[in-house]
């Protein structure tokens, strides 16, 4: 190593310090949410920063029993799983085509995808209504899932294209010479090698779909189909938001999401250290 031991030691301390600061800025609001979820309404309003006068657990119970947050979670899970499946299939195939094949119309397709990323959803409300209604998908999970998939499509394609392009061509050529079809190459060779990237895209899009308020507010109007963000709007009553209960619901919802993310992190985004084609 060209770095002296002193510089290494200092760098290590600096590294930890920086990590700590970064963690603090990320965790701060979480701590606020968790602490707030144990307060009573009045306690929270008087001073949202101090520790609770008394630690109450009923907010968590209320969130699930009274506000029936569990129902929203099921709905969100359904829509997100559906949307993610559609999205990943469509985006992976498209990204692979753009990454590895030169064909007439390649530039056009890229431009079209770029353009579709640039339109705010507000503008498309009415046209989307008409399209979904003619397809008979208005108010259905499938309809909203398709909308989610479509809105995440552009970003996913570009991300996946970037990751696919970093796979060494020799590996694919080798598979091709062995007689593998394009789809098999994609599924058996390219995807496993880009698993970190693919998993990242899946995680990012799942997050976006999970947190989407606008599309589900407009297109899933039946209270029984409400997803989590729409359901959380119900906490905003007439003249007083029940903040502690809302925070309890949010804590309860964020924890599983984090666990899932942490697990996926370790297994997929950590990556394959040895690589497969070296």
């Amino acid at each position, binding site marked *: 190593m060209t770095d002296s031991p002193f510089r290494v030691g200092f760098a290590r301390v600096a590294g930890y310090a920086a990590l700590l600061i970064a963690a603090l800025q990320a965790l701060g609001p979480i701590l606020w949410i968790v602490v707030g979820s144990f307060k009573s309404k009045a306690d929270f309003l*008087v001073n949202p920063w101090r520790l609770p006068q008394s630690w109450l657990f009923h907010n968590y119970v209320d969130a699930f029993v009274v506000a029936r947050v569990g129902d929203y979670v099921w709905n969100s899970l*359904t829509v997100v799983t559906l949307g993610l499946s559609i999205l990943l299939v469509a985006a992976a195939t498209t990204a692979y085509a753009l990454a590895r094949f030169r064909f007439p119309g390649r530039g056009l397709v890229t431009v079209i995808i770029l353009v579709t990323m640039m339109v705010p959803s507000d503008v498309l409300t009415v046209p989307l209504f008409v399209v979904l209604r003619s397809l008979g998908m*208005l*108010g259905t999970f499938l309809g909203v899932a398709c909308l989610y998939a479509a809105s995440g499509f552009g970003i996913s394609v570009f991300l996946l294209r970037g990751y696919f392009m970093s796979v060494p061509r020799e590996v694919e050529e080798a598979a091709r010479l062995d007689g593998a079809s394009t789809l098999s190459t994609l599924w058996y060779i390219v995807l496993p090698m880009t698993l970190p990237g693919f998993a990242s895209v899946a995680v990012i899009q799942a997050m976006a779909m999970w947190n989407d308020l606008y599309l589900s507010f407009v297109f899933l109007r039946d209270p029984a189909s409400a997803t989590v963000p729409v359901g959380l709007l119900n906490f905003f009553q*007439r003249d007083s938001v029940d903040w502690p209960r809302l925070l309890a619901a949010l804590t309860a919802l964020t924890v599983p999401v984090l666990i899932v993310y942490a697990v996926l992190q370790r297994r997929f985004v950590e990556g394959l250290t040895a690589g497969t084609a070296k």
Partner: protein
Amino acid sequence: MSGKASAILGAIALYLAALAWHWVHVSKQGSASEGTGIKLVVFGPSSWDGFAPGAAEDVVARVTGDLDARFRIEHPQVKQIVHDVRGPVADGLARLRNAEVAGDQLDVVVCAANPVNTAYARGGLIAPLDALVTRIRQRFTPGAVENFTVDGHIWAAPLSAVNLTTFFYNKDLFANVGAGAPKTYSAFRALVPKFRAANVIPVVHQGKNAWMWLFYYMSALTQATENRQVLFVERMLEGTTKFTDATNVRALQLARDWVDDGLLDAQSNELDETTMKSVFYSGKAAAFFGDTWDIPGITSNVTFHWGVFPFPQYDSALGHPEAFGGVESGLCISATTKQSSLAEAYIEFATRDENARRLLQPLGAFATSHTNVVEGDDEISRELRARLPAAKFLDWIFPPELTDFMQRQMQAMMGQTQTPEQTAANIEAKYETLVQAGYVYKPTKSASPAATK
């Protein structure tokens, strides 16, 4: 296949099966309701638009279920009455419009008076109810029906408590500086140094919600125009009087004085409804200018003695203070309903005195839309009742683009980043661009100054 892999696959399969079951379950729920018998849908664009708004959830459920049960006895062909009341107030208009565009079934719509006047009626979202309301008119107070009269038509049958703008104050904090409720502006201003010594903010406001600043403007304009504010506003909108007219600038200045004199916190623009109320509830501020719809929140959150007082009298002003408001909500008919006679029957049923009394009783309101339904006999209710009749909210007369612009201008002025003269000039300029784009003031029949009871 290794054990771990098959375990994971098994878990995924289980997960997908659970989701599939849930998906089918929810879809069946949706179609099951289109089963046998007639279904009536009562729609509330926001969570404010339901029966007994502000009361506890179980109370609301009880009175609503009660009413529906009695209605179904009279109309046995109705198998199901669905109440869809959700969402934040700001999104109410969008929710109603989306539901109608999507072709959802909407029969009765519970509407607030403000959007009826500013959006629903002229936007084609609801249908007029002249025949029905004229027939049952004696149930309602005259002002109640006025609030829902636009362009000469009646758009709702009133059914709600009366709301009034009012100051709320912390009696304990005021007592600490040796004062009671101030009657005049100068009396209030005299308390500023005392509050400052006690480290208390005299008045706060939810300035982040730009629309709330108009309360100050309207109250000041009322006094500056000797209580002829509606006429004055009409003349400004017709173009015969400019927004830069001395009286209007004076009104803006009177509003601005609150901040300049140290009464109103200069950083109120940072506060929204939650943060403002938390400042008040925690005793950091002594008063705020709000509306009686804030009362349920106050009663459940404060730990001190509280009271109300009307907007104070400006000594130099010529008019006397008026409270704004009136009957707040009513029952309308959706423009897209296919069961208008049934919807009308439901509206007629709900607004009968005995039913209205049951629906309004949980609110303990000091006054309601019905002449024969009066609750609230405590000191505060009596005090509020004494301030009736209410004056009409002026932002029902302005076109929404101008209202929105004025709200932002007020926000800037009260944040001390521009002068009243500048504010007036900006508003006049905006008005002129609207006129150039084709705006013409259409007087609503109810715009005459006398008819605000």
